[in-house]
């Protein structure tokens, strides 16, 4: 179809390419810009989240104390002079603290005012004083300048969460108490000190006495047992499915089920645990044992999938090499394939563990939501875990629990961060080239 009238030279391919270049580059620029925007947006939200939690929570790591000269009268603590621990434990330490407080404010005589004065001291203060005296009985009979734990309302006032200029009816601390606190502050008798209680005590109804030690130990026992159960079972299952099981309809079915189980909402595992472990097998509820069993069910699919991927990525030439020198299939797996797959398996397992550490919903179903003050000492002690503790505190009305909720979240995030860091480091450490 040569048209003699058409005198334009034929278009060269390079011209067509050049014509479309501009559009192609524009598309690439758009895509890059979209990606950068998405990453920036994500980073902004992460920073906002962390800033919010840290700003709300950091004050919980300090606690308000009031310094009082306390006369540890032998007549009150140990009238018989036997230093018998039972006697020391029974003594009325609240009386000692109240007497010391009264001496600071001799003008307060009215019964109701005295009660208000006493309410500035935490109800847990006598217990702390008792511990102090029992640890060092030589203090008995002397007068010591001691830092006494303040009530949570005073704590909030000192930390500035209660507005001193607000109308008296709108705040939990009366003008009278603010006056007392101002006087104590002027005398240097009010200070914020590091909040050891937060890390050494179990939870409490009183914010100033509430700590995360119980929840941390509960999380530790739960997680340790979960790892001990799910790691060998998960890796064993992956090894069998990947390397030994015949490829047939049954193993296909198992594979599909494992993949589906990984996506099942966690509360379903809680219901299952309630019905099977507590209802059928009679495992004590609200214990790290039953929590670990539920968590094991929940983490197993994650570990199995991660382990199978890791095993698959080991080159078949290694298996052939081992089989070729006469290693049995099991020796091939344990001497060569498993060590090479270990970094991937560990990474998957730690990520599964991190998910288990942050899990709340299934634990609500098996009674971990109970209010437990004692720090658990074993797998069968009633316990709660960190995320459930956060959930409980977030539900509490006292102002003091707001900062504690955020502080507990900081601790939880710190543990998650450490676990993920461990996953990365383990991966680097064990990664081998072939």
């Amino acid at each position, binding site marked *: 179809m040569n048209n003699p009238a058409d005198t334009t030279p034929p278009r060269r391919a390079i011209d067509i390419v050049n014509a479309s270049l501009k559009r192609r580059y524009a598309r690439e620029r758009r895509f890059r810009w979209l990606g950068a925007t998405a990453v920036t947006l994500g980073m902004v939200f992460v920073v906002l989240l962390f800033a919010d939690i840290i700003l709300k929570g950091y004050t919980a790591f300090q606690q308000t104390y009031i310094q009082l000269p306390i006369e540890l009268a032998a007549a009150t603590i140990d009238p018989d002079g036997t230093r018998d621990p039972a006697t020391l434990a029974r003594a009325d330490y609240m009386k000692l603290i109240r007497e010391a407080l009264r001496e600071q404010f001799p003008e307060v005589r009215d019964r109701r005012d005295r009660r208000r004065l006493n309410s500035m001291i935490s109800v847990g203060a006598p217990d702390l004083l008792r511990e102090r005296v029992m640890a060092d009985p030589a203090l008995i009979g002397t007068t010591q300048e001691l830092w006494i734990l303040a009530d949570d309302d005073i704590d909030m006032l000192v930390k500035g969460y209660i507005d001193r200029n607000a109308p008296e009816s709108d705040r939990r601390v009366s003008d009278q108490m603010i006056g007392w606190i101002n006087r104590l502050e002027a005398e240097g008798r009010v200070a914020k000190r590091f909040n050891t209680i937060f890390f050494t005590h179990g939870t409490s109804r009183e914010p100033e006495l509430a700590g995360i030690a119980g929840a941390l130990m509960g999380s530790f026992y739960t997680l340790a047992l979960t790892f001990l159960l799910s790691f060998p079972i998960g890796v064993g299952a992956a090894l069998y499915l990947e390397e030994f099981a*015949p*490829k047939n309809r049954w193993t296909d079915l198992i594979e599909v089920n494992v993949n589906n189980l990984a996506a099942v909402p966690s509360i379903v595992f809680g219901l299952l645990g309630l019905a099977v472990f507590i209802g059928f097998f009679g495992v004590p509820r609200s214990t790290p044992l039953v929590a670990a069993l539920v968590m094991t069910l929940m983490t197993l699919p994650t570990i199995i999938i991660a382990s199978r991927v890791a095993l*698959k990525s080991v*080159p*078949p*030439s*290694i*298996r*052939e*090499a*081992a*089989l*070729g*020198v*006469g*290693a*049995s299939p099991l*020796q091939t797996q344990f*001497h*060569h394939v498993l060590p*090479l797959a270990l970094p991937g398996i560990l990474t998957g397992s730690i990520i599964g563990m991190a998910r288990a550490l942050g899990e709340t919903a299934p634990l609500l179903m098996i009674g971990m939501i109970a209010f437990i003050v004692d720090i658990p000492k074993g797998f069968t002690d009633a316990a709660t875990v960190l995320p459930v503790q956060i959930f409980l505190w977030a539900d509490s009305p006292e102002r003091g629990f707001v900062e504690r909720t955020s502080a507990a979240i900081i601790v939880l995030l710190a543990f998650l961060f450490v676990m993920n860091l461990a996953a990365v480091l383990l991966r680097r450490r064990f990664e*081998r*080239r*072939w």
Partner: protein
Amino acid sequence: MNTMVEVMDKTTGAISSADLAQDRPSAATVGDVTVADPRMTCRDVDVWYGAKQAIKGVSLDIGKNEVLSMIGPSGCGKSTFLRCLNRMNDTIDGCRVTGSIKLDEQDIYDKALDPVPLRAQVGMVFQKPNPFPKSIYENVAYGPRIHGLTNNKAELDELVESSLRKAGLWNEVKDRLDQPGTGLSGGQQQRLCIARTIAVSPEVILMDEPCSALDPIATAIIEELIDELRANYSIAIVTHSMQQAARVSQRTAYFHLGDLIEVGETNQIFTNPQHRLTEDYITGRFG
């Protein structure tokens, strides 16, 4: 799984041009498949991958102290046949072997026979050097250790040294036995794999294109080594290089689409092939 795909590809990637298919030979193999002093004897071996037949009625002997090379176009079944000789095909799903393969009068496909000790008797060197990601010493010591061939550390040290010497690698690695085997060069890695194979004192060594990933110098060293190893072992080598087959082997077998076309003295195969397909292949008309 990957292994299966690899081997399947080799079998399905066969030359399928029409004129070659018309030249399908009769079942009979040209030349004498037997030797006077056989180490391994294979009779009427068929191999199926699922419904597909990869090896069709192959009979072949491997003599003592000889190097037998197997040549042929891609997908002709030579690697498959080699892998039958130490039952490496067992690891492939859907692979079925019939006929008889005997090692010193012992049927290796006997139900009662354990493939694990068999693979210690019939060692294998693979196409790609595949040392374990462990030290050079551990690579060689692994086989003797799992089979319990030595009683103490001194004996093991001795065995490692002698194996590395036989593989011509000792002088190059004696000062760095604790370094990873994967850090060696390609040719050294392949010799390490040979040392690893001979450390368990096999009777037969199977080599599946051992030099295809190596440069000409490393190839020459390995070929020299193969010639030395012939004194103590029977060697069956699959190769794509006809020059290599001509250089290292005493007998040559030509495979085509799962059939064993022709077997004979290497000299005779390369100078005076009897079958047209063999002639076409070695003169470079295809393959």
